[in-house]
């Protein structure tokens, strides 16, 4: 069943067109990587789906419901949880408060408790400092917190914008390892914006390549990463 | 110079249009208007000087200042000190230094000096205040206004305290006010396209990029602050000669808010916005005042109850801002070229 379908959307900032006629389909349980050079519109795509940025044209459907133009909170309540670029923890709130914020909207109050303990199992260092303000955490720890926070909303699909941004390689491995473990244990669908194609290749799943607001390439991450088709598409010479 | 002249060519039409509008209003008033209506138009021209004065700083720097009516106060009182007959000054303002009590300057020289005094004060205070930006700057400029108001309201021997001081020669007629308004619009225009004006605008839109390319934001802001203070100081002087009586309460909160509203409703970032804001809002206020006085429509006089005029102008401002958040001129300059919306100058 198609979990999320993006149909020919265009997004403009004033007179600048960030996305032009982008379409995308994500099946339940799939892992999708969105790559492409800086300014290709990767973050804009995520923000358009989340409802933070209005789509000038086209339609977005989530679990069969049209969410184009919907408010971020209604999209979140439908099970789409987004971790934006730069993480954005609530520094003045404690770590546990950050996590509990994610659970605020859930109807199933009972399972929130064990979700929390599960997040603490996966990210033990969060449990040690749970009453400290989130502002004190390091980059990697903040990344862990925002992923934990996204999980607390019991999402069907998690979209993460540049999880490895500003993190040491070792920490990036840890983050991805956790993501995959959660994906398998909870049957999550992942939509990840990731600069490094090697990372995409190692993790597997499908990949789409965006350049100057358009989808220029789509296919299985591993096969694309090996050939030079990706390099050509990435830098825009070759077929057109 | 080539680059400068092309900018001039592209934007000069805005200046000409604005001046023509002001002159047209003055001529129509002189022909058709009654004496009270003429005074309304004179008051409007003084407001144009005030709002364009604020625009020189707020429009170009993006910093919302609440303090500029303090310069109007400095200007008005300076004009009073320079032009009130010595015999009256000895009695009502004994605290003034002797050389001031005995001098009585011609109107235009005193208005110019009044502007200079306001500009000097702006230079001294601006050197500190201009480092601030955003809401902190708004509060600091408001605090400056409050300090000026408290000092002028209580320094009885020099300013006559909260009472009005009288004896300022009546001078500001429609042509003086028109001249003042045109002068201010020209100064604003020249500053806007000057090197310093463009640098400040760059700083307003992209602070980091501008700073990176060597724009000293604090210095550019100070220049705009001082020029706007001079202009508003002169406007204060003309206001004194228009009303004949000056009182600190006339330069505090109500005039601050009405001028800021006219600027924002007109369009905060464009010179045309500042001028149109004054004209449109003043026209609506005058229309409502006529309605309040009662307009006889074929025998029956239709009159709205007293006090409704203020409520209506408040609602009108809210509605305009709702549909045009960036103001009536949408931050664009009115220009000659009729094909498509005028070329935005920002």
């Amino acid at each position, binding site marked *: 069943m198609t979990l999320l379908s993006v149909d020919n959307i265009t997004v403009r900032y004033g007179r600048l067109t960030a996305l032009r006629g982008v379409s995308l389909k994500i099946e339940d349980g799939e892992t999708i990587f969105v790559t492409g050079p800086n300014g290709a519109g990767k973050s804009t795509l995520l923000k358009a789906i989340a409802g*933070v940025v209005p789509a000038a044209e086209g339609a977005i459907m989530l679990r069969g419901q049209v969410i184009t133009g919907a*408010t971020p*909170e209604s999209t*979140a*309540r439908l099970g789409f*949880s*987004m971790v*934006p670029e730069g993480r*954005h*923890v*609530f*520094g*003045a*709130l404690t770590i546990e*408060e950050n996590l*509990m*914020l*994610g659970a*605020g*909207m859930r109807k199933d109050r009972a399972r929130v408790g064990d979700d929390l303990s599960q997040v603490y199992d996966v990210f033990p260092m969060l449990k040690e400092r749970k009453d400290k303000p989130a502002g004190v955490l390091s980059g990697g720890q903040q990344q862990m917190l925002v992923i934990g926070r996204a999980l607390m*909303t019991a999402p069907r699909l998690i979209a993460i914008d540049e999880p490895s941004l500003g993190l040491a390689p070792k920490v990036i491995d840890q983050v991805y390892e956790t993501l995959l473990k959660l994906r398998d244990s909870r049957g999550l669908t992942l939509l990840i914006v990731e600069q490094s194609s090697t990372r995409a290749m190692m993790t597997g799943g499908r990949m789409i390549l965006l350049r100057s607001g358009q989808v220029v390439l789509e296919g299985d991450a591993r096969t694309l990463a090996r050939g030079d088709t990706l390099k050509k598409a990435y830098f825009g010479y070759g077929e057109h | 110079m080539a680059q400068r002249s092309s900018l001039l060519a592209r934007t000069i039409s805005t200046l000409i249009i604005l001046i023509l509008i002001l002159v047209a209003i003055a001529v129509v008033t002189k022909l058709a208007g009654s004496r009270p209506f003429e005074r309304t138009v004179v008051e409007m021209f003084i407001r144009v000087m005030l709002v364009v004065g604020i625009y020189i700083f*707020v429009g170009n720097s993006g910093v*919302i200042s609440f303090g500029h009516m303090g310069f109007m106060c400095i200007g008005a009182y300076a004009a009073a000190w320079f032009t009130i007959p010595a015999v009256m000054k000895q009695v009502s303002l004994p605290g003034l230094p002797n050389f001031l009590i005995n001098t009585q300057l011609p109107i235009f020289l005193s208005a110019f000096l009044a502007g200079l005094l306001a500009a000097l004060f702006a230079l001294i205070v601006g050197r500190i*205040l201009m*480092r*601030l930006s*955003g*809401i*902190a700057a708004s*509060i*600091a400029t*408001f*605090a*400056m206004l*409050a300090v000026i108001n*408290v*000092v002028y309201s*209580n320094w009885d021997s020099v300013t006559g305290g909260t009472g009005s001081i009288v004896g300022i020669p009546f001078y500001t007629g429609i042509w003086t006010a028109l001249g003042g308004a045109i002068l201010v619009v020209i100064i604003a225009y020249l500053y806007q396209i000057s090197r310093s004006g463009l640098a400040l605008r760059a700083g307003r839109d992209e602070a980091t990029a501008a700073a990176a390319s060597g724009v000293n934001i604090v210095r550019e802001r100070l220049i705009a602050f001082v020029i706007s203070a001079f202009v508003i100081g002169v406007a204060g002087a003309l206001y004194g000669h228009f009303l004949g009586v000056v009182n600190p309460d006339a330069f505090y*909160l109500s005039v601050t*808010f009405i001028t*800021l*509203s006219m600027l*924002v*409703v007109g369009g*905060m970032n464009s010179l045309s916005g500042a001028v149109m804001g004054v004209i449109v809002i003043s026209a609506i206020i005058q229309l409502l005042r006529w309605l309040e006085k009662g307009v006889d429509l074929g025998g029956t006089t239709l009159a709205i*109850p*007293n*006090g*409704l005029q*203020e*409520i209506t*102008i*408040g*609602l009108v*401002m*809210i509605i305009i*801002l*709702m549909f045009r*958040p*960036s103001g009536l001129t949408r931050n664009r300059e009115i220009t000659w070229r009729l094909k498509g919306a005028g070329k935005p100058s920002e």
Partner: protein
Amino acid sequence: MTALLQILFDALSLGSLYALGALGIALIFGVMRLVNFAHGDYIAFCVFALLWPSIDAAAIVFAGNLPTIILIPLILAIGAGLSVLSEILVFRRFRNANPATMMIASFALGYVLKNFLLMLFSSRPKSIDLWSNLSQQVEIAGARIPLLQVITITITIVILIALTAFLKRTRFGLEMRAAAENFTMARMLGVKANRVIMLAFAISGMLAAAIGLILATQTGTVDIQMGMSVMLVAFIATVIGGLGSLPGAVIAGFLIGGASVLMQVILPLEARPFRDAFVYGAVIACLIWRPQGLFAPKSAKQRV
């Protein structure tokens, strides 16, 4: 010694008013980056709600005669209702307008409210005897303090504790603190924007009503301009305290109250009329020293 205690109580009771005012403004600024200039007029409106509209000099007390246990909730409800109504009818349309437009819209709304009251009640201040039995003396460690001052301080402390508990303990409180820090990120976690903003306006309206009641009891007058001076100082306290920081606003409110009382005590007679000039001078110095405010929230980071 008693003189010192007296000054402390004077400073605390004046500071309480400014703290409540600053809180009312900081709450709305937190969630919407809007400085609500109509806040002063909410204060006046809530107190006029005690009277029946008439432009005679003598006040016709209407709701003011209700027993206290009904009167206070009613006036708090009127404050909250007026504030929420202004959010729905006016401010909702300015959600993503620039700060200048929002500021002028709030000023215009205040102007409309002020003139509406002027039409109904005329400009002559009305007098009202609200709990005047509170005005007798209380002996505390030698200093004779009007009971009303003690009550004002206690009410303010109770309100602060209740509000802190609400913000810290309840889900809505958590949502408001998060929204105040990073509004869009909170919405991406399912926090309903309209609900959080309306809640902020409701609490701010109640605070305005509380200030109105305290002022009416303290001064015995109901006047269209009564909210103005408290609002201006509260606005300054919000900025000095650190925008968006609720504790900052409260502490700055008490600081300005204290400074004002101290100036009144230490300034010589001729300089005393210039008291406010010194207070505003201190405001400028404070802003130069810390433009982002004394207690700017640690994570005043760029928002999504």
